[in-house]
């Protein structure tokens, strides 16, 4: 049973558009909601994260929107650039046992 679902599996946008990546989860004990990005040939790296005390977290062009009631959080990438082309993973944290639950990823391509 997959606890974390990402959609879409792949996404192509034009440079300058807003890319929207979605993550839904089942476990209501999750309390840390990060997004990692992974460029081809590289390892994942933290992009941005949110705790449920807030519904929104911004960092430059990257924004997380969090909906606790619907158990969803999304990553919005404004003014998308070709350099944003990567795979994006959501990986919410389970309670206090350090075990992140990784989604299967969304492959984003930004065309110039």
């Amino acid at each position, binding site marked *: 049973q997959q606890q974390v679902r990402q959609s879409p599996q792949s996404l192509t946008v034009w440079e300058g558009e807003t890319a929207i990546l979605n993550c839904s989860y089942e476990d209501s004990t999750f*309390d*840390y909601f*990060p997004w*990692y990005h992974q460029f081809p040939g*590289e*390892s*994942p*790296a*933290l992009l941005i*994260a949110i705790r449920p005390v807030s519904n929104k977290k911004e960092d430059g062009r990257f924004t997380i929107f969090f909906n606790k009631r619907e158990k969803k959080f999304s990553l919005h990438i404004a003014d998308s650039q070709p350099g944003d082309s990567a795979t994006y*993973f959501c*990986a919410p*944290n389970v*309670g*206090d*046992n*350090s*075990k*992140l639950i*990784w*989604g*299967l*990823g969304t492959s984003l391509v930004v065309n110039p």
Partner: protein
Amino acid sequence: GGIITQTPKFLIGQEGQKLTLKCQQNFNHDTMYWYRQDSGKGLRLIYYSITENDLQKGDLSEGYDASREKKSSFSLTVTSAQKNEMAVFLCASSNRLGGHAETLYFGSGTRLTVL
């Protein structure tokens, strides 16, 4: 800042062979992880460790052993390499604040090929 060093970067083994992958971190992080990533796929947790000499099984622990003899190092052993095991093995570490894992920092990976 710190760094996570994985050795070797490339590992070629024979089917049935026992293979060991090593990971060192100088962040002084409590928690360390081993993940497997197949080509174009997501990350699957093999083992993690929240402190020295602790081991916790992940979803993919069968066929693997791990060892955390020091806080700074975490090794992974493939007990009997199989051809479908060709993948990148990623080591990561994180701190725990208030009992929750914070940012994971990843090494550059060990790419395993089984002949």
